[in-house]
Structure formats: structure tokens, C-alpha cells
């Protein structure tokens, strides 16, 4: 797949030119997080009459190497100039690497953060001044500011930097480590950089490497950036360690959308009915042991029952529900569909939906309309709800919520987990997922409703929706064996 060079954008809020970050489909300035951005690609420029602002800093083109010269020798040539590494670093980071004649010939630069090379835009206002100790590049920012990059003014240290493999190091196995341990440590060492540019890790490591430099590594921090972007280089904005980096990734992933199990709210847990086994009820019960601790129930045991009619020791069930609000046996969800996924605690205080506020309302929601004489059936959702429940649904229960594109985890009858689950308990108890009506006779009259109609209906909707989603994705990715169906 040929990658189209991703263009640079101009942020009208801070004046930075960058590749924007996309958050929920909205592009944000990579520098100030502003949203007032303009694309700088001349081909896509919406206003061709408006003069494009100056291009990002472009590395001075070294004299084009003889054709056939390998990349590594080109790089060594850059080393010899001193500060070649910094040029490379900076150039790649800002996507201007394409201006390097040798690299342009070699195709798009995969090490630039966007994964593709920057377009060669017209350079205006770029000055270059090669002094004795290094080079200075200046450019104009659209707002009138001026940017300046100075290369190679750090004397020995800079020269040392030019030598280490750094983020472009071979194989990228521990490019970053090599980079920093190599600071000045291998001043004379020559490293083969060939292939380093193709390492997919280079982008990340490169970025981190630059961050670390900008953050002010003592004694190493060059007069690296002056001008507009410098104000953005706040040490607190960058991570220094792998751990910190992972942490940020973690945060980003969490921000991208909650996943994982949702706990049941305290209200729901507290509201689950408790039953004490009598000799008679124990004998009638299909469930002879607790599925969690596998201990046999005995007369006098207090058990908790979830709406799908499975029973557990309270001490076995409650810690689980506080992690994952679903039945351990059949995954019947105790978390309302429209409950706030982001903040499960919210369901304790707020109404799940429809303006229900009090605890009793929530419980009523969960348990149905005060003991409708419904036949407690199995939680298998492929079954249509019994007729009486359907009619009840049409009159007294709000319609199920509209199908949503990403249903939360719920019962997945086809999941691999079900097989072992039913095998593991098939010896002693009825298989609750078999679809046959389960006889539950152990509850008192006030608990006679097993699954309230709206709950069941919502459950069914969820399943249908899940099925539809799966089909759609299968069609979309029919060529792809990896079909998303679990997130």
C-alpha cells in the first residue's frame, strides 16, 4: 500500500506546524491541543489564492551522493559533518526529511512520526548559516515569529552524539538504551546504521529520544530550539522512562474507551434476594453446590440468588459482582444497559434511565413488577420471552434502548468459556445454559419473578445487536481472519 504523505498542518492558535493528533475524529494541534488547524499541503489547500505559510524547517540538502551510494555511507557522511545526527533527528521529527536528496531517492522516510514522508512544500523564509562550530537554520512562523535551530554547537558532546546509533540504531532492539548509554560513551565508535531507518520502533524511540533531550538532560541540552516552539518544551510535559511512557499509553487507552468488566452497583448487590436453605428447599433445588467455591450447599446455608436464578454463597458472589456485574455461571448482566459505563458508581446515586431515582425503583427495574407470576426460565436469550411477559412489556415497561454499536460484554453463548464452564459443573447440577426450563422452587412468594420482562428483552436485544454487529464485521472483513467480535 503506497502511503500518501501526510501533510503538515498549521495551528492558528499557537502557530506551530505539525501533524495533528486525532482525538475522537477531531484533529488537535500536537503542540497546544488547539483545534483551529489548517492543512498545509498545497494540493489540499482549500484556499489556493491564499498564500501558504512558510514550510516547516527543512534540512539543508547535502550534496547529492553518487547514485548507488548506500544509505549507511550517506549517514556516515553526515556524521563527518558533525551534528548530522541532530539534523536527522530534527528533520525526521518534523517530517522534513524528504528534503534530503539521498533519502528522497530512497523513498518515503518510515521513521518520521507520521509513518510517511512529508510533502516537499515550497520553502520560504528559510535561511541557512554555516558557521565554524555548527549551522543555524532560521525560518519564519506565520504569526511573524521566527524559529531558529542551531546544530552542532555543543563541541565534543555534539560530536559524540553524532556517532551513536541512537534511535536509528541497528535493529531497534534497545535503540533508546543504546542511545543514552551511548551519550559520549562511544565517541569514536562507528555504528552501522543501515536498516535502522526501516525499524518500526524508530518513530517511537526517536520521539522519546527527542523529548528527553528537550527536557534538559544536564550538560547535554543544546541551545537547541529558540523561537516560537521553545515555549512548548516544558520538561513536565515529557516522559523520561519506559514506565512513564507505558503509563501514558495506558491513560490514552483508557481515555479511548472503557473496556473490561463493569461492576454491579452496591444497590443491585444489596438488593439480591437471600434465601436460607431448608431441608425441603435444598432437596428441590437444582443447584446443589456453589459454583464459585464448589462446596455443597447444606441445610441452613444462606444463598444469594441472581435474576437468572443461579444461587451462590453471598461471600462467594459479592466479591465477584464488585469486579464484574454478571452471573458467574451464565454471564447474565446485572449492569443496566444504559448504566454509565464510564462511571459505574453513578448508578448507585443516579437513575439508570427514565428518571427512576429511588432504590426501590432500581430494584423494581431489576426484579420486575412486584412478583409477576412468570415462569422462571433459563437465561438463554435465544428464546423468545413468554407471551405474558411480552404483553407486559408492551404496556408497562419502557421500550428497550436503541441498539448501540458497541454493546458491553454480556452473555456470549458461543464463547470458549462456556464449554469448560458447563463441563466443570455438569456432574453435580443441571446445566443452566441448556435452554430447558430450570425449576426453581426455593424462593418465597415475594421472589417469584425470575427475570423481569424488560431485563430479558434488553438482554435479547443486546444479543441480537451483537449478532448483527458480528455479521456486519464478517462481511466487511471477509478477507481477514481476524474478526473483531469481543470488544
Amino acid at each position, binding site marked *: 500500500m503506497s502511503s500518501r504523505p501526510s501533510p503538515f498542518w498549521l495551528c492558528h492558535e499557537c502557530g506551530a506546524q505539525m501533524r495533528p493528533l486525532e482525538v475522537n475524529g477531531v484533529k488537535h494541534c500536537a503542540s497546544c491541543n488547539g483545534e483551529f488547524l489548517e492543512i498545509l499541503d498545497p494540493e489540499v489547500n482549500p484556499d489556493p489564492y491564499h498564500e501558504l505559510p512558510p514550510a516547516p524547517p527543512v534540512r539543508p540538502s547535502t550534496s547529492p551522493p553518487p547514485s548507488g551510494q548506500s544509505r549507511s555511507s550517506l549517514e556516515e557522511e553526515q556524521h563527518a559533518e558533525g551534528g548530522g545526527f541532530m539534523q536527522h533527528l530534527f528533520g525526521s521529527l518534523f517530517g522534513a526529511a524528504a528534503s534530503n536528496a539521498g533519502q528522497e531517492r530512497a523513498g518515503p522516510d518510515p521513521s518520521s512520526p507520521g509513518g510517511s514522508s512529508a510533502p516537499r512544500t515550497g520553502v520560504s523564509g528559510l535561511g541557512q548559516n554555516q558557521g565554524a562550530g555548527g549551522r543555524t537554520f532560521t525560518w519564519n512562523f506565520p504569526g511573524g515569529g521566527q524559529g531558529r535551530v542551531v546544530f552542532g554547537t555543543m563541541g565534543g558532546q555534539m560530536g559524540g552524539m553524532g556517532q551513536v546509533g541512537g534511535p536509528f540504531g541497528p535493529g531497534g532492539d534497545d535503540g533508546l538504551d543504546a542511545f543514552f548509554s551511548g551519550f559520549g560513551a562511544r565517541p569514536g565508535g562507528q555504528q552501522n546504521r543501515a536498516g535502522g531507518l526501516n525499524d*518500526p520502533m524508530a518513530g517511537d524511540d526517536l520521539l522519546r529520544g527527542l523529548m528527553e533531550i528537550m527536557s534538559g538532560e544536564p550538560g547535554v541540552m543544546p541551545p537547541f530550539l529558540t523561537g516560537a516552539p521553545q515555549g512548548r518544551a516544558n520538561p513536565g510535559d515529557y516522559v523520561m522512562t519506559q514506565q512513564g511512557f507505558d503509563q501514558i499509553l495506558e491513560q490514552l487507552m483508557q481515555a479511548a474507551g472503557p473496556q473490561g468488566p463493569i461492576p454491579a452497583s452496591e444497590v443491585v448487590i444489596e438488593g439480591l434476594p437471600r434465601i436460607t436453605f431448608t431441608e425441603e428447599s435444598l432437596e428441590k433445588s437444582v443447584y446443589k453446590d456453589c459454583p*464459585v467455591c464448589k462446596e455443597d450447599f447444606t441445610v441452613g446455608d444462606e444463598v444469594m440468588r441472581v435474576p437468572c436464578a443461579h444461587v451462590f454463597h453471598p461471600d462467594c458472589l459479592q466479591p*465477584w459482582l464488585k469486579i*464484574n456485574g454478571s452471573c458467574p455461571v451464565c454471564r447474565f448482566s446485572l449492569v443496566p444497559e444504559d448504566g454509565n459505563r464510564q462511571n459505574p458508581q453513578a448508578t448507585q446515586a443516579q437513575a439508570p434511565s427514565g428518571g427512576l431515582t429511588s432504590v426501590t425503583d432500581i430494584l423494581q427495574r431489576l426484579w420486575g413488577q412486584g412478583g409477576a407470576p412468570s415462569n422462571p426460565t433459563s437465561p438463554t436469550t435465544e428464546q423468545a420471552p413468554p407471551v405474558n411477559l411480552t404483553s407486559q412489556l408492551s404496556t408497562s415497561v419502557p421500550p428497550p434502548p436503541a441498539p448501540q454499536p458497541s454493546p458491553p460484554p454480556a452473555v456470549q453463548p458461543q464463547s470458549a468459556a462456556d464449554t469448560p*464452564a458447563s463441563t466443570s*459443573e455438569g456432574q453435580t447440577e443441571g446445566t443452566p445454559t441448556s435452554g430447558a426450563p430450570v425449576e426453581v422452587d426455593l424462593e418465597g412468594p415475594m421472589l417469584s419473578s425470575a427475570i423481569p420482562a424488560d431485563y430479558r428483552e434488553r438482554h435479547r436485544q443486546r444479543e441480537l445487536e451483537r449478532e448483527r454487529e458480528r455479521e456486519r464485521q464478517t462481511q466487511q472483513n471477509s478477507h481477514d481472519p481476524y474478526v473483531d467480535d469481543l470488544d
Partner: protein
Amino acid sequence: MATGLASKRLMKELAEIKSKGTPPGITLLSAEDMQVWLFSIQVLGDETIYKGETFALKMKFGPRYPIECPEVTFVADQTYNAVIPIHPHCYSNGHICASILGNEWSPVLNCVAICITMQSMLASNKKKERPQGNDRYVRNAPSNPKLTRWHYDDDTV
């Protein structure tokens, strides 16, 4: 007391394994304490690409087992001539990307159920290959696979 629940439950599982045995192809190699157990898994039959291979599955139980899933990894073990299976869901460090070891864990599952799942995961595989991005993952992976945020995207294998 959660810790009590863990060891009680494990004792029960152990007793059941000892009295009823394990399913074909699955053997309990060691269960010296209530913290780490080692199972061996073989895929039986002629159809499998893992014919003749033995794998060792290590389970590490926390005090909150079975409310929390054990840490499950494949280990290379010379004593048992076990290697880490080459499978699109098994990383070369032994970490396994399987939903029941993550957010689809349920306390009704047990050690044998995990073994059966792993066995069937291996049995249904047709091509020996490592997951995409194996090297990168292995380089940065935490030692405890439960700390990895898995993305389960394939239910065919």
C-alpha cells in the same frame, strides 16, 4: 476470608483431579503448594499440527482465586521436554492472549477448564506462527500477563 476461599477451592480441585483424573492429554505435573501448579498439555490425535509435542502450562494463583483469574503462562521446561507452543495467540515469552484469562474469566472456571480451553485452542490451530508483533510485545511485556491489556479479536482459533 478470601485467602481461605482460594486454598479451600484449590484443595477441592486437587482432590477432584486425584480422584477423577484429568481429561485425556492433560496431566497435573506438580501442585506442591497452593500457589503454583504446573500442567502438561498435549494435543491428541493425528490431525493436529502439534502432534508429539508437549507443553507446560503454569498457573499462579493469587489469594483472590477464583474471583480473580490465575496467572497462566506456557513455560519451556526441560524436565518435561516442554516448549512454548508456536501459535498465533501464544507469545514467545509464554504469555497467552485468551479472553477467559482476561475479562471473560469467571469464578466457575477452574484449572482443568483452563487446560481444556488451551488444549482446544491449540487443537484448532492450522498454522504454526507467532502473534503479530511478538518481538515487540515480548520486549516490553510485564512479567505478569494479567497486567497486559489484551485485545481479543479472533474467535476462530
